[in-house]
Every structure is written in C-alpha cells, then in structure tokens.
C-alpha cells in the first residue's frame, strides 16, 4: 500500500508534492487542500486553484486572500470582525460569541487562520460555562487568533496570564504558601508534553513558579509578595524560575514538539492513523528549531507528498463547525448568509458548542462526533438549509456556473468530487434540491 510506504519513509513523505501524470493536480487534490486547510470551497475557488496549480493555492491558504467573501479588504474585514465580537458579540453572551465567530468563519479571507484558532481553542480548551464572562472569552479568542499561525512559545506564555484560562482552572489566587497546582499540571499534561513526560514533583515545583498569579476584576495581576522566589528543580533544571522560565523549560523538551506535531497530524492528515516517531520527528525538529513558529510544520505538511497522497483523503470526521461553515461557503450562501445565531444552535445540536468545550481536554472529536442524535442533527441542519428558499436556490447555483444541465454532477463535483462509488452516484437523482440534499447528507460528505 502506498500509505504504508510513504508513512514508513519519512524522507519522501515530507518532500514537496510535485504534480505529474500519475499524480495530477486535479479537483480532488484542490478540494482536499481546502477541506483540511480551510473549509469546503466554492465552485469558483475550486476552478481557480485547479487552474493556478499547487504553489499559488497553498500560498493563498497559508497567508490568506486579499478580500473577504463580503468583498471587503482583508484588513478592514478583520477590524470589523474584532469590533463585532467586542461589541454585540460579547454583549449577547455565549450565543453572541458563537454567532460572531461563525459569521467570521463564513466570510473570512483567511480560513486557515480560523481553523487554527479553533484548533488552539480545542487545545487550550476553556469554557464560558464556568468562566461566565463572555468578554474574557472573547479576549482569549483574540489571543488564539493572534498567535494561530505564529509563535506557540508566545501563545503558551500568554496563556499562563490569560484571565479566562486562570478562572477556568481555578488558578486566580496562587499564593506562596498555597501554590495552585492546577495550571502547572495542565500545562504539562495537556498543553505541552503529554502524560509520561514529567513527574508529580515537576508539577509541584512548577506550581511554585506560577505563584503570585492573581485575577482581580477580570484582569491578570502579578503580586511579587506572593511569588515564591526560591530555587526549584523542574525536569532536571534548577533555578529560581518564574512562569515564563517554566515555559522555556517545557518548550526545550523534544517531547513538547512531538506532542504538538502529533496533534497537527491528526488535524491536517489523519485521525485514524497513528504516526510513528520516525514520521513525526522531522516535523517536530523543524518546529523546535524554528523556536515554535507554527507556520513551519503547517507549511511543511501542506506542501508534502504525504498530504496529497490519495490514502490521506477522508481520514477525518468533519467537526460540526467545519461541516456547517464549509457547507455555507461551498453553496455561496454569504450575502445574506444564514442566521448565525441559529447556526450556533445547530452546531450545538451536532455536538460542538463553540466557547464551551466539554472539559479542559477539549472535544473528543473524530468518530465521537457521530451518534444517533448528532447524525440526525446534521441531516436536519441540511434539510432546513435546503428549505430556506429565501437564502438558497439550488437551481440557481449550478446555472450561475454554467452547469444547469446536470445538477447531480455539479453538486457531486463541488462537494465530494470523485469519492462516490458508481452505486452511490446512481442513487443521487431528482431535482436540484433533492440531489444537493442527498450529497450533503451522504456519509462521504461528513468526512474531510
């Protein structure tokens, strides 16, 4: 099997993909790139990227497009979205936060940055249910977005001072006499190293380094009188470390880069294959040597032969947010778009409440997205969208792209490309509305 050969051959796996007669730059590869590094694309984007080739397509995803889907230039779109989240978004509570983020994802000129923001939201999972302060959740979301494709080192250091995170982990008053171990434990177990790469003693010592941390009226405060300035021994190093120094010690561990790269592998490549250390190490080394510039491993993955290998397709279950936003972008339901309040509720029914992951470990994801209730919620979301005649006309979309004569072929190519077996394709029939519904509810479409 090709998958085995490439996965067992890290040198070739991470070399850049080159289009050839046997591995052509085709619709499947263009769509795969967008599903993983963004959201399902519109017909126009698919055709453009098919034409312009891998370099230009990957580049646009890594750095964003010049214009948002509402036509505004990228920079002013960002300002507008920040203002939207800050004002009406946070003011309307958890639903407002969810709705304003979904609105942003639907129109963003930089889908990869939103996907990575969501990835870090899952990694540094914090829930408004406990934090109870929408404005602090909004601040954390801005922090995640600012560093989404930048320095993980900066993100990690900022997270130790993020009021929402500290409230979430009950670490709002860590005093010299009673160091709070919660943050120190999670930073090792969930944020950097993973279990088995530190001891209880390391947690206790690190907790001392995080003393003096307070949250007062929603703001981070460092109180030097409550900081334990004594000597600590953490992961073999000794010194009078503070929180920033602990972050440096953790980042210096090879286990940290491996831990993060395994998560990036699951995000961008496969949730069902367990990569070997040999396959992960080149990514992890590059990440650590760059000083944890997240752009480095992400770019390496997206350019790689392994990424574009057909064996890597459909190896992820779309999260409810990927599913919902991708569908809306692919069907060009952008101006006006759907009610993002309702969309937030639909995502909740499908099992993903933005800003409210179930625990500090984030969403389980993968096959766990799928159960009786969530599957019905996915189908019902599609049925409701297909019947929202004011916002979506299933005849008009293929007609706009000169494909009115065969809507079934159009929706298949747009949404799932060549993945349907002929037996499935034979059953996709009926009116434009019917064929769109059938493709969007098919098992194939639930996978990325």
């Amino acid at each position, binding site marked *: 099997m090709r998958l085995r050969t490439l996965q067992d051959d890290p040198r070739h796996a991470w070399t850049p993909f080159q289009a050839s007669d046997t591995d052509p730059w085709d619709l499947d590869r263009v769509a795969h790139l967008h599903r993983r590094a963004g959201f399902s694309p519109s017909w126009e984007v698919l055709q453009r990227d098919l034409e312009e080739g891998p370099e230009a397509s990957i580049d646009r995803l890594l750095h964003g497009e010049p214009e948002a889907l509402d036509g505004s230039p990228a920079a002013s779109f960002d300002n507008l979205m920040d203002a939207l989240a800050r004002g009406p978004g946070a003011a309307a509570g958890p639903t407002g936060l969810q709705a304003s983020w979904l609105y942003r994802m639907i129109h963003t000129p930089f889908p990869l940055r939103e996907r990575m923001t969501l990835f870090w939201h899952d990694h540094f999972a914090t829930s408004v249910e406990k934090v109870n302060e929408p404005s602090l959740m909004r601040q954390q979301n801005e922090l995640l977005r600012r560093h989404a494709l930048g320095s993980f080192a900066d993100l990690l250091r900022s997270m130790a001072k993020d009021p929402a995170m500290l409230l979430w982990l009950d670490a709002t008053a860590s005093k010299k006499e009673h160091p709070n171990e919660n943050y120190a434990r999670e930073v090792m177990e969930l944020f950097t190293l993973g279990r088995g790469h530190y001891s209880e003693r390391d947690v206790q010592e690190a907790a001392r380094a995080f003393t003096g941390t307070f949250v007062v009226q929603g703001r981070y405060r460092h109180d030097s009188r409550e900081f334990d300035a004594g000597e600590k021994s953490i992961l073999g190093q000794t010194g009078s470390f503070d929180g920033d120094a602990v972050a440096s010690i953790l980042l210096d561990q090879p286990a940290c880069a491996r831990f993060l790269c395994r998560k990036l592998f699951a995000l961008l490549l496969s949730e069902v294959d367990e990569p070997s250390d040999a396959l992960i190490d080149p990514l992890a080394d590059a990440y650590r040597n760059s000083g944890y510039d997240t752009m480095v491993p992400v770019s390496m993955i997206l350019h790689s032969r392994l990424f574009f290998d057909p064996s890597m397709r459909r190896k992820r279950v779309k999260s409810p947010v990927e599913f919902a936003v991708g569908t809306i972008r692919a069907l060009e339901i952008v101006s006006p778009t759907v009610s993002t309040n309702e969309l937030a509720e639909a995502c909740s029914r499908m099992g993903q409440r933005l800003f409210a992951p179930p*625990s500090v470990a984030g969403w*389980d994801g993968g096959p*766990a997205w799928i159960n009786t209730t969530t599957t019905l919620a996915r189908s*019902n979301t599609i049925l409701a969208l297909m019947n929202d005649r004011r916002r979506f006309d299933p005849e008009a979309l293929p007609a706009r792209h000169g494909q009115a004569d065969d809507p079934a072929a159009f929706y298949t190519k747009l949404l799932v490309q060549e993945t349907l077996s002929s037996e499935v394709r034979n059953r996709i029939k009926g009116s434009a509305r*019917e064929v769109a519904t059938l493709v969007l509810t098919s098992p194939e479409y639930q996978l990325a």
Partner: protein
Amino acid sequence: MSLHRRQFLRSSLAASSLVSMGGVTIPGFLAQSARAARGAAKSNDRILVVVQLVGGNDGLNTVVPHGIDGYVRNRRRLRLPTGQLHRVTDDISLHPSMGQMAKLLEDGRLAIVQGVGYPNPDRSHFRSMEIWETARTDSHPEALETGWLGRVLDADPPSPGSDSPALHVGGGRLPLALRARRVEVPSMEQIDQFRLQANGSSAEQDSTRSALNEVAGVDRSDDPLLGFLRRSTLAAYEASARLEEVAAGQGGETNYPNFNLARRLEQIARIIKAGFGTRIYYTRQDGYDTHANQLATHAALLNELADSLAAFHEDLAQDGQAGRVAVLVFSEFGRRVAENASNGTDHGAAAPVFVVGPVAQVGLIGEHPSLDDLDEGDLKYQTDFRSLYASLLDEWLGVPSAPIIGEGFAPVSLLSTS
C-alpha cells in the same frame, strides 16, 4: 484531544468495523429492543429516570407526619387538613394533591425513603445540588468535574454509532449529574430533535427519507471510517423512523395531563417504547423554593408531580415496560421544620425521596426523623442519599457503585430485580 482518548476511539472504531465484517449489521438498539421484547429484564435493559425537584421540596408537607408530635406545633398556618390526606400509615400520609401517588402506592409501585440527606448539610441551593449531583461532599476542584451518572457513563462509554447512553429531557444547561469526561450527553427539549425533519406533504417526506436511506445504504465496508459513518447514519434514520411510528401509533392512547413535567415524561416514554439503547434519563421540575405563600403553590406542584408520574407509569405498564423502568424523585434539600413569617418555609435539610417502579419494599422505608431532636431547626437525616445511589447502581443498573460514589454506603434495597 489527548492521545489516550484518540487511542481509545481508534480501538473502538476498529471494534465496530469488526462487527460489520460478520455481514449483516444489526444496530445496537434493535438488538436491545429484541431482548426487551422477550420479556425478562436483564440488568443491561433496565432504565433509570431521575426527576429532580428544583428549589428544595418541603418534605414535611409532602409525606406528612400528622400523627407525630411536633407537626401540628410547628405548622400552624401551613398545616394540611388531616381529613384530605392520603393515608400511608396511621401517622403518616401523602399531601391531598397526591391522590395519584396514593394509587401508585396501592398498586405496589411506590417506595418512600424517609429522612434522606447527608452529613453537615449545606443550605445553599447551588452547593447542595452539587453535592447530590456529584455524590461528593468535599470541595476538591475535581469533585465538580463529573456527576455521579456521568461517571457511570465514563465507566462504560458507548461505542461510536450507538444510541446516546443518557439523555437530558428539558431546557437549560445539562445537569451536573450527567456531566462526564468521555461522553457528551445530549439535551433534548422536544422529540422533534430526534426526528428527521423532512419537508412537504407526507408523500414528499416519505420520498425524501427513502432517498436518504438509499444513499446511506450502499455498502462501504472497504473503508472503515466510511463504513462506520454509513452504519451510524442508517441507525439514526432507523431510530428516527421507529420513533415516528411509535409516536403516530400511540396518538390517542396515552393519557398525560397538561403539565410540563408530564410532557417531558411522555417524551421519555416514547423513546423507551421505541426500544432505544438509552438507559439513563434526567428531567427537572422547577419551582419548589417556596419561601412565601406556600400552600397553593406547593399543592399545584405536587399535583403536577403525582399526576405526571402516574401517567408515565400507566403508559409504560400498557406497553409491558413498567418492569424495567425505575424513577427516582429527589430534591436538593427539604425545608425548615418551623414555618416562617411569610406563610412559607426556608431552606432545610433531610427530606423524603420517592422511587416509582418495581419496588422491593412498598411504602415507607426507614423511620421518620424526629421533630424534636433537630439540628439547627432542621430534620436530622436517617439515610445518606449515597446509600440510595449505591442500590440503584449495584442492584438496578448493575454497575459497581464503589468506584462511582466511594466506599462505605450500604445499599438500601429499593427495587426488585427478580
């Protein structure tokens, strides 16, 4: 997602694809309903329904100790007229609005555990609910991460694609009792969320549904993940279709009163009758925080409770399912023995708990707490609520209770499992 979780998911995915290699795949809930139809309820067919009375129910005016010295003395304005009470024993009777509960008692379907509580009672609604829902009295941060029923789910997480092992029926946030680390429990206000909502005439709806089924139905077993998605999708449509059949077939036969609680229990009954694999249901009745002018409000609440529980029981009995369903009714605390100056009662401690179903002991369990020997004006508890949980876990659900609620809570036998 942590690595061990991913490994777990990967292995459960592998396991579920093995199932399909045998050829025909029977969705789990069908297998279960087939078992149920054969009659004898095995431990993995039994169902627990929890009804939480939110606000702190006045136990003294629910299971009324009118023959015990002290009731009359403490309850001058809130005293219930003895002639209208429903007799349980010579000294103890049910509230006048609970005629339907009295009938359940007559039919041998009701147990009343007296004086249930826990040491050092907390009189904050919030804190006391946390204690009941987590089954932990300490304030360790991790104590609040999972509920007692959530830990039941974590102990045996469902395989992907199977029915949700627990359901919250009602609005508002998920009860802490159902919070789990590895399982996401859905909240459902309306059964509609469990139905495939096709549009148009009924013929159009049918054709949409069969088209969706046809597309999902094609074998995809050469790809494990796709095969899993296919099975889950078919199972979901099948569940939805059966639910609809059941709902349509039952139309006029059930007889639920027009109360919120009754509507929720009716939804639960429908899902049970449809043969779902869900074994834990949770719902709430609000409004028990009766600090002022308690009499009329409390009577209405207890009437809703009694009539709804009786209708639920009757519905299940008609379907031959009453033997596998137990209902636990609790509140976060009872109220002060003495009434207050506003014709109401303030936050108290121990109170009675109801169990409806195939009970092992009909009627009262345990002694009524003394009305003279009080703890800061409140009844002293006789039975720790965790002893009831122990019984429901060990004996009813067949889940070892010690890892869930800790050691040392001797089960109080509540239900008959023969």
